[in-house]
């Protein structure tokens, strides 16, 4: 199927020279083969999507095109000419610009300074500044990308910061613009605005390459789409001639179960009650605003929302990592002080378990052996102690049992945790947090960076926990995941819970709510 599609693409694009033509791009990081002999042609004046799961190699491929990494082998042609791209400098010279997933901005600098960085136009800043300001204003006008040139970038909202990134690329004369997962931090409305900008860029002759793992965006804005799976390019097709189902199958390699089989929830007593919980951080920014909800035994409640709208802070307050500035909380009917002290150990003692959003940052000490991580947070349990000392043999034995039960491979409890794959690391965290039959289980991004096989396993485990009577709160930026797991869905925006829906709510309806348009 691969050869066929590529041929079709090739004949169609023949009348216009490809803006970008990659052949045989290969790249490994240690043993991770990120890109395998990739061929890709991007026609001039089109929006070309590259879709694939997390870790499929999309970002690596585009970072090679931008010169941030160097390919081990392969050839890059721009407008038909072979170019040797050794650094971003070369890519910029070849007319390629890139907007990274994590913005490459200097926050204390103004917009103008960020745009000028690297193309200052003279030894003294004053030499180029006036010229740069005029050019910036022209670009802002031409592409409807208004930003105050003198605003400090760190003070701008993310949507505007992204605009600065696009302006940076255009200012450097980019003819081809690469955007890596640009909507991860945007509300659906902001994303739509971005798409309008991209279409306009295309209409003015620019070529846009859009990397995403969201099929909705591919269908909404691209002309052509290439699918990557495990470092390989599996297909390139016209967007108009494909469907989300076909793309999903190409991404994953087999049909995905978009719906989980599960019985209706049988709910019991309230297990977690939040009342008027607010959080204002040290800078005075309101992170949580009067959050109230109740979670009952035997149900899964999903929290939907664009990343960065208070979900992380909510989990941190409930789990005792962070203090709230107002409000009350009860677990299993008993009040828990969330205002005066934050102590995750206390929450664990009253049987609240927490699978954090980011296992590397929070859930694991990756430099520890696996067995040491299986007791993280429970290390003061007398079961693991031998008098004053830790019972190391007991801890290892316990770890091996858990690792076998959760199918962690390899089941070697002495192996350093950093040597396990992402999915297996996540299973170590899940095993630790689920084994004690918690009354309340908080789960952040249950399947981030986890391969498909493990996703199913993890989802089934969560359903089983629910059926055993646990109260489960799931936070995920993947609407699909929220919709297939949850019995009820709460939508968060700007630190507030702005609506509740059933699992049957449509993606559009939830998306609209996530923008902050309250009921």
């Amino acid at each position, binding site marked *: 199927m691969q050869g066929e599609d590529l041929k079709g693409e090739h004949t169609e694009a023949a009348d216009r020279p490809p803006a970008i033509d990659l052949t045989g791009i290969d790249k490994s990081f240690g043993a991770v083969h990120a890109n395998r002999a990739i061929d890709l042609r991007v026609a001039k004046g089109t929006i070309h999507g590259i879709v694939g799961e997390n870790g499929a190699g999309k970002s690596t491929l585009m970072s090679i095109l931008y010169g941030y990494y160097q390919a081990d082998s392969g050839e890059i042609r721009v407008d038909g000419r072979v170019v040797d791209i050794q*650094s971003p400098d070369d890519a910029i010279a070849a007319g390629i610009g890139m907007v990274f997933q994590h913005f*490459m901005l*200097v*926050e204390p600098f103004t917009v103008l300074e960020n745009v000028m*960085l690297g193309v200052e136009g*003279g030894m003294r*800043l004053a030499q180029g500044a006036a010229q740069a300001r005029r050019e910036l204003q022209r670009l802002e006008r031409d592409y409807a990308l208004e930003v105050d040139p003198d605003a400090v970038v760190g003070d701008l909202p993310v949507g505007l910061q992204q605009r600065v990134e696009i302006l940076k690329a255009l200012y450097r004369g980019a003819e081809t613009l690469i955007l890596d997962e640009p909507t991860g931090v945007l509300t659906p409305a902001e994303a739509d605005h971005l798409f309008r900008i991209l279409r306009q860029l295309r209409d003015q002759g620019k070529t846009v390459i859009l990397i995403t793992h969201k099929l909705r965006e591919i269908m909404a804005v691209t002309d052509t789409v290439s699918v990557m799976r495990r470092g390989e390019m599996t297909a390139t097709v016209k967007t108009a001639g494909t469907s989300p189902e076909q793309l999903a199958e190409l991404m994953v390699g087999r049909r995905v179960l978009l719906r989980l089989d599960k019985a209706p929830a049988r709910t019991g007593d309230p297990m977690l009650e939040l009342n008027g919980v607010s959080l204002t951080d040290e800078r005075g920014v309101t992170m949580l605003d009067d959050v109230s909800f109740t979670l009952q035994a035997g149900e899964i409640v999903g929290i939907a929302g664009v990343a960065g709208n208070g979900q992380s802070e909510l989990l941190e307050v409930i789990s005792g990592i962070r203090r709230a500035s107002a409000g009350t909380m009860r677990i299993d009917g008993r009040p828990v002080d969330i205002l005066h002290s934050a102590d995750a150990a206390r929450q664990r003692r009253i049987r609240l378990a927490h699978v954090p959003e980011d296992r590397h940052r929070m859930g694991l000490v990756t430099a520890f052996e696996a067995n040491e991580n299986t007791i993280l947070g429970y290390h003061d349990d007398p079961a693991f102690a031998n008098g004053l000392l830790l019972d190391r043999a007991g801890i290892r034995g316990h770890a091996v049992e858990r690792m076998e039960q959760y199918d962690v491979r390899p089941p070697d409890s002495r192996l350093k945790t950093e040597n396990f794959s992402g999915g297996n690391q996540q299973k170590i965290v899940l095993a630790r947090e689920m084994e004690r039959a918690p009354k309340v289980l908080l789960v952040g991004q249950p399947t981030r960076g986890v391969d498909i096989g493990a996703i199913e396993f993890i989802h089934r485990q969560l359903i089983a926990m629910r059926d055993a009577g646990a109260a489960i709160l799931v936070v995920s930026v993947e609407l699909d995941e929220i919709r297939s797991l949850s019995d009820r869905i709460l939508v968060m925006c700007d630190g507030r819970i702005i609506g509740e829906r059933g699992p049957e709510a449509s993606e559009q309806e939830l998306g609209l709510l996530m923008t902050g348009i309250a009921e």
Partner: protein
Amino acid sequence: MDFLDVILVLDSTVRLSIPLILAALAGLFSERSGVFDIGLEGKMLAGAFAAGAVGAVTASAWLGLGAAILASIALALVHGFASITQRGNQIVSGVAINFLAAGLTAFLGFAWFHRGGQTPQLPASGRFQGLVLPGAETVRDVPILGPIYSELISEHNLIVYLGFLAVPLTWWIVYRTRFGLRLRAVGENPAAVDTAGISVTWLRYQAVVICGLLCGVAGAYLSIAQSAGFVRDMTAGKGFIALAALIFAKWRPWPVLGACLLFGLLDAIAIRLQGVALPGIGEVPVQFMQALPYVLTVVLLAGFIGKAIPPRAGGVPYVKER
């Protein structure tokens, strides 16, 4: 304490501040680029020794200054190699530089000059002498302004004037030039600099070399301008006071001048007050005055008088995100 005493204390403040100003500005370049440097002390010491040794052998102040700069830059490059190329721990590297310098200067001085680590007394041509500014003699007797001009402003050596000139020059480079923009950017977000097509490595090496240069001048000032030869450990913690001043100044050039003058003034007062009983207070222990810059820095770091926020990428070797 009459007016002339005040002038004299201020005059010695100027003399004592200069090595601090030069070293703190040196640190500013390095740390603004994201390379922490607690090795200012060592580089200064190496510069002082090189200047003293070469000055003594050649009887030329200029050759001494050149040697100081070279020696200091050599150590700066070691620090650069460890922190930039090898991505080692910048603090550990700085500690190593300090010991290397302390050991090597004493060791080589001992081996070469057989004076227990000192270099021989310099001839006049081997030193930077005080420059009498035009008209200093004629206005000496003018009340107030006369002593200010002839005692305080005139009759310093060349490096003193260079040191004061270095402040506006640093300000101009950091805030008004392309290099300065990139320097500030690489200390905040090296990835932004990298993706803008600028080499992070090269930029940081430039910053580190400038740091070496300024430390070298500071060292030369100690051995061939302020004194007439090198003695063991002659920096005596000035590199760390400069570091403290840099933090105090929140990594900005003009406040660096202010902080260094303040610390210099404390030192000058400490010398002046030795054995003098103050009315109502009694004799202030000289150790108290010596410890004051360090205490003030700790208080500042504690955030009780404003907050010192270092360049965000400081201390972190640049590794591309994966």
